[in-house]
């Protein structure tokens, strides 16, 4: 298993290299540069040139990349152009913020959606099934940012139950941190329920057709035992892969939700950096997201045999 993990990580190296080069090239193709953005309308040629020189932007691109890459290899992703913070700690700090929201949302969504999907499949075509499928399809169809705005409007403004703005980290005040996280988590949660429930239902339908389910019934096991002991684990395996993919995608993709609820997460950092042309941060974020994606998928694959022992992680 260790060998598998190492092999997988080594195999991801070319992928990450491509990500690094592509991001580097891409972001520099974009018009506008950080120096002129920092100076705004005041930029005269001299101050622009000196700022560009200070930021190392006047060197040829391959040289810039080589320097960045060399530093990146030793774990130094450089410093932010706009805030002068070291990129790696910045990215990691923002990552934890996003991770909290995403993990909470995905875990809650899994806890609700997977059983619901199983039950829907178990009672396929019943009114309950139709209702659950309808709800999940509906949830799937609402854009997250719109949902977020509606929640904000309702819980934050109309009812005044939840704080609408800001973010408190757990280390500062766990209680308030929780309050601030409820709405963003709920937004993602509602959306992911839709995705997961459909997946869980589909895979449960597959599994419930198989002989060993009938075999389990033929042993005299009750429906709940058949469902949870025999069907659940097997039906969960494909859903598990989806959860992994979802985590990977969400970690970089919740910029929109982070924007609505002003959470200082990784997605927001990336979007802001793109607007500010903060090259080191953009590169750092993208590389980090790619690494996380690779790692999440690795962990998913390593844990997969828990749900389906036929697949071995080797």
């Amino acid at each position, binding site marked *: 298993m260790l060998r598998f993990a190492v092999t997988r990580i080594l195999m991801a190296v070319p992928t990450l290299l491509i990500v690094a080069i592509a991001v580097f090239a891409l972001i520099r193709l*974009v*018009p*506008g*540069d950080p120096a*002129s*953005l*920092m100076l*705004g*309308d*005041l*930029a*005269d*040629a*001299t*101050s*622009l040139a*000196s*700022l560009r020189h*200070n930021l190392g932007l006047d060197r040829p691109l391959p040289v810039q990349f080589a320097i960045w890459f060399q530093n990146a290899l030793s774990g130094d992703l450089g410093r932010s152009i*706009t*805030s*002068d*913070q070291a990129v790696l700690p*910045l990215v990691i*700090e*923002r990552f934890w913020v996003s991770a909290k929201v995403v993990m909470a949302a995905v875990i809650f969504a899994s*806890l*609700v959606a997977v*059983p*619901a999907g199983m*039950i829907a499949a178990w009672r396929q075509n019943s009114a309950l099934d139709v209702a659950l499928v309808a709800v999940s399809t509906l949830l799937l169809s609402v854009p997250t940012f719109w949902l977020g*705005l509606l929640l*904000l409007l309702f819980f*934050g*403004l109309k009812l*005044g*139950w*939840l*704080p*609408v*703005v*800001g*973010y408190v*980290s757990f280390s500062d005040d766990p*209680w*308030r941190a*929780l*309050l601030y996280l*409820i709405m963003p988590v709920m937004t993602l949660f509602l959306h992911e329920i839709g995705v997961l429930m459909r997946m869980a239902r589909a895979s449960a339908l597959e599994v419930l057709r198989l002989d060993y389910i009938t075999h389990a019934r033929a042993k005299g096991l009750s429906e709940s035992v058949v469902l949870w002991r025999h069907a659940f684990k097997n039906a969960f395996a494909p859903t598990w892969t989806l959860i992994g993919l979802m985590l990977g995608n969400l970690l970089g993709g919740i910029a929109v939700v982070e*924007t*609505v*609820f*002003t959470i*200082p997460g990784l997605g*927001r*950092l990336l979007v*802001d950096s793109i*607007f*500010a*042309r903060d090259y080191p941060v953009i590169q750092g974020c993208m590389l980090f997201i790619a690494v996380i994606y690779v790692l999440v998928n690795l962990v998913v694959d390593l844990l997969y045999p828990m749900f389906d022992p036929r697949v071995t992680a080797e």
Partner: protein
Amino acid sequence: MTRRLLFALPCALAVLIAVSPAIAKPLTVALNADIRSSNPGVNRDDNTDGVILNVVEGLVAYGEDARVKPLLAKSYEVSDDGLTYTFSLREGVKFHNGAEMTAADVLWSWNRYMDPKTEWRCLPEFDGRNRLKVVSAEAPDAHTFVMKLNEPSALFLATMARTDCAMTAILHKDSVKADGSWDKPIGTGPFIFGEWKRGEYVTLNPFHDYQSPPGEKPDGYVGSKRPLIDEAKFLIVPDAATVKAAVVGGSLDVAQVADSDVAELRQSPALDISTPQVATKHTFLFQTRDPLLSNVKLRQAIAAALDMKQIVAAASNGLGTVNNSAVPPTSAYFDEVQRQGYSHDLQRAKALLAEAGYKGEEITILANQRVAMPSYPAAVMAQAMMQAAGINARIEVLEWATQLDRYQTGRYQMQSFSYSSRLDPALSYEQFSGPKDEQPRKVWENPKALDLIDQAYVISNEEKRGKIFDALHRMMIEDTPLIILYNGVDSVAYSKRVQGYSTWEGKPRLWEVSVAD
């Protein structure tokens, strides 16, 4: 199980809210983006300046009438040749660490700024790269500071006082670590730099030993500056809609809000709104080297086609007033001549178009959708009016960085653009005037105008300068290299529990502010 869970969730929420503890609230001010650093005038933007100028102070600062007044200096004298400036420092002024401010600190600060390694943003203004050069700075005694220039300048003090230069703030040398790297600002301002949680907030604490400059009430960055609150917290909230919701909901005490929200927020019983004018200029730029727009008649036609009143009303949500002049209305130089602007005249516009030989060629207006800027709505209005006059106008909305790039390189026909605040008219004209060959971003390159601006840089006499600016204004209206629409409005909403709050030039001033409970 599912049902129970679904039911439990709202209940849990309700409980959470009911027992949420009440916390003594600091004065909470919204920032739309994090500050860049705490290093004054080095790594900065408007937000950074706004926060940091509560913490540090310079020798001189702007008053509300755009005149430069002494702050840490008690007074200053200029030699007759206009080359030597002698500052007498106020006595008994303390740094946040308790040390008393002396001329040695001023000299240390100045030398630090002049060191290229510091990367002070205003260094080019004083090292000769932009003509003016400070040839020497000395501290003959503990309370006197002398600076010598290479040539007379009407703008030396005005530049020192610029907010983006962080007022050339005087810092204690412990602001810098032993290795020369920046630590944190130890200044003389009414507030002490507190905790900075990147991406989340910055807190400021009152400096109880603060020595306020004289005055009954705040006057720009001078006047009475007592810290009255226990704590101020700048909360970083990038999203405008969220800011609005939060200020209505009471989570924010002070927030800059979109002009479009002012009417609505005025309805809120818990809020006060102020909409002071600032010296930013919202404009339409023309590329005078564009084959089409190089024709002055066409530019004049466009100006005549625009109903500026309506544009300004729409773009500023009825808060702004038309001002076609580069001189801000608050300035002492703003006179009758400056009030003369363009007039909306569709017939004239059509006649001018015919004269210009315009045949329906497309004219593209670049705009961006930054929240704080009226770029986009102004462009939308202008497009509609130009079309009404028979001009084939099209809007291209760009991301700000891209538009800025086009501005820098001069690659555009027309853009809806905003200039940052310049209080002195000479500086204001300089923003958009200059030779395009060297500086493609410049808009106006009429040699006669450039010559006049040069004169305004050197001549200190107010009356003479006034004449120069009047002449410049007439030339600009005739040339129409750009259309200055109006000066920005800084709409601020603040909770009624906040007393004495006012922004100036878009910067939050926390002194003389108190909070009722």
